[in-house]
């Protein structure tokens, strides 16, 4: 800022002299005007709530006596000690759901991008179609799908898959509902489009001639995928996993509707602290810690994905 407005008169001029006059000055301001709506939006809906929550998290008091900022940082430590398992569970569930989304979404995005031909748009609409219904309704529908006397459970039971999932602790006592498996299924289902769309965009941009070139240079189809297609689509993989993992780790609806109290995620705790227990400082502190954990994981991940080793 200062460098623009107050260049000393005697200093050697680095920028070409700007023609004087109001028009020139107005032209220089155009980028700032264009930025203004975005900046205002961020101030009102991002910075202000963050500041407000930060202050809430270091307050003490009660609803009756009112809350005072007392810089009571112990709230963070106490909340973490009490709910560390919920953090762990959230990250594990979100992690599994992200991996499943990638495993389901990549082949699908690949097919839509390279093999679908004229069905491409139809398939894309089908990917987005669930958004036409509310998140809540869709998750409730999974209650019916996974119901104890439903077809899914009976088929899984007949195939002895439930025994296997029970053995690794994903399900218990011939049920799917109210188990970790149900919550992970719900998360995977709900966040799948967020994985597919960025994957599709990055795959769709790949020139099919690159595949031909790789084949021409002695790469078998799978090698072509491993050495050319996948590395080039990596930005889409990173974007997709972030768009899936971040909201999934803060989600509480899937655990609420498809899980039991022992599948509660950190989002459920925060929700109940804010809305049921009305313990605002703990709720705010939990939120900040969730944000910090995600930021750390994401930055490590991005650094890792940005290097050649991952390719």
């Amino acid at each position, binding site marked *: 800022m200062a460098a623009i407005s107050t260049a000393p008169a005697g200093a050697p001029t680095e920028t070409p002299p700007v023609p004087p006059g109001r028009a020139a000055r107005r032209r220089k301001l155009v980028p700032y005007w264009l930025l203004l709506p975005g900046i205002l939006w961020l101030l009102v809906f991002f910075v202000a709530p963050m500041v407000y929550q930060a202050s809430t998290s270091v307050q003490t008091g009660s609803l009756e006596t009112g809350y005072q900022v007392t810089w009571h940082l112990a709230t963070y430590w106490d909340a973490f000690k009490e709910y560390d398992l919920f953090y762990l569970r959230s990250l594990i569930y979100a992690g599994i759901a992200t991996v499943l989304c990638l495993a389901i979404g990549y082949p699908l995005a690949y097919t839509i991008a390279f093999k679908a031909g004229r069905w491409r748009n139809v398939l894309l609409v089908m990917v987005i179609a669930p958004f036409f219904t509310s998140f809540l309704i869709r998750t409730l529908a999974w209650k019916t799908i996974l119901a104890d006397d439903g077809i899914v459970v009976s088929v899984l039971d007949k195939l002895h898959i439930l025994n296997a999932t029970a053995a690794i602790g994903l399900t218990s006592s011939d049920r799917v509902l109210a188990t970790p498996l149900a919550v992970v299924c719900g998360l995977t289902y709900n966040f799948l489009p967020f994985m597919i769309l960025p994957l599709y965009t990055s795959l769709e941009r790949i*020139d099919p*001639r*690159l595949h*031909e*070139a*790789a*084949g*021409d*240079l*002695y*790469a*078998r189809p799978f*090698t072509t995928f491993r*050495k*050319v297609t996948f*590395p*080039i689509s*990596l930005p889409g993989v990173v974007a997709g996993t972030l768009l899936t993992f971040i909201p999934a780790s803060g989600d509480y609806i899937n655990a609420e509707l498809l899980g039991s109290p022992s599948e509660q995620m950190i989002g459920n705790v925060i929700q109940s602290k804010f809305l049921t227990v009305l313990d605002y400082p703990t709720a705010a502190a939990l939120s900040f810690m969730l944000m910090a954990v995600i930021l750390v994981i994401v930055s490590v991940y991005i650094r890792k994905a940005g290097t050649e080793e991952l*390719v």
Partner: protein
Amino acid sequence: MTQQTTAPAEPQASAASGGAVTLTGISKTWGDFTAVQPLDLTIPEGSFFALLGASGCGKTTTLRMIAGLEEPTAGTVRIGDQDVTGLPPHKRPVNTVFQNYALFPHLDVYENVAFGLRRRGIKSVKKQVEDMLELVELGHLPRRKPHQLSGGQQQRVAVARALINRPQVLLLDEPLGALDLKLRRQMQLELKRIQTEVGITFVHVTHDQEEAMTMADTIAVMNAGRIEQLGAPADLYENPTSTFVANFLGQSNLIEAQVTGSSGDDLLLSVGDGRLTLPTARSAATAQIGDKVLAGVRPEKISIAHADDAATVPDGRNKITGRIIDASFIGVSTQYVVNSPWCPEFAVFAQNVERDTRLTPGTEVVLHWNPAHTFGLDATQDIEAGEVSA
């Protein structure tokens, strides 16, 4: 001059070795559309061969069938002694330089060039890659990514990436199409130099007739899925056998004339009240007396004289009268367009040695040329076939 004007129909397998490409009865159709008519073609080992034609003539499809990127509807492809018709691209001893290069954007120059070697399990690629980068004069930029290179440099990487595998045949699909004119000229000579240096068979697809003539030993002119004519550049230029080749390769003036008789080795033709002489040997049409033929002559073979000087034109030359409708001075020569009653828009390129300043638009002139420069074509063809505006 190579006398190879027709492709042998029955290729001798024993004659084909190393990098010779033999196509036998090869064709490609998509539904009702025939991209390539059944064609036979032998590309000799070590030659620089050009497939020349306008877009959509089937030249790229032919190239892709040699590469294995397109499966022929019928016919066989042999490279050397090996029938490769059923082989996928990665099992064929050919490499391709793609249109727009198709460089791997996530790999640097070095890794792009090393790609083929690594896929074949060769561990120590350093020496070969460095030598190859040296050959294409990119030794100083091994760590650049493709998007950090100019078009000409990308083109060199594409050539190096293909050549390093020592293919028996290198296929080039419009490799210079994306470059500007000056760079294109430079790369034409460069590619020619590389081909001479490595001695590999090059098959080059292009729509640019000058490019084909500059680089290739042999050119096949393609039109509508068919090879119109095949031969050395000068041979094709001097002796086109169809109006398409006459018009597509350079420019031609074609005059519809009637055969009135013959004298020695020449056919005598009449056009209106004028007379032309055509060497019988240079007529692609077997014309009887009374038949029509197209008499052609290249614009640079023609001399132009003011009508007042008509008497100075030596006897025995083919003569045509007309009026200049356009004259453009382009430095080394002046290009005239002359309207003649027998041939509208007759093109004449006159070297600017001694310019006659009277030759301005509207002037009546006499055009004359050595009859030996006249060629004859079958008059049943479309006289404007192959005329390109580009």
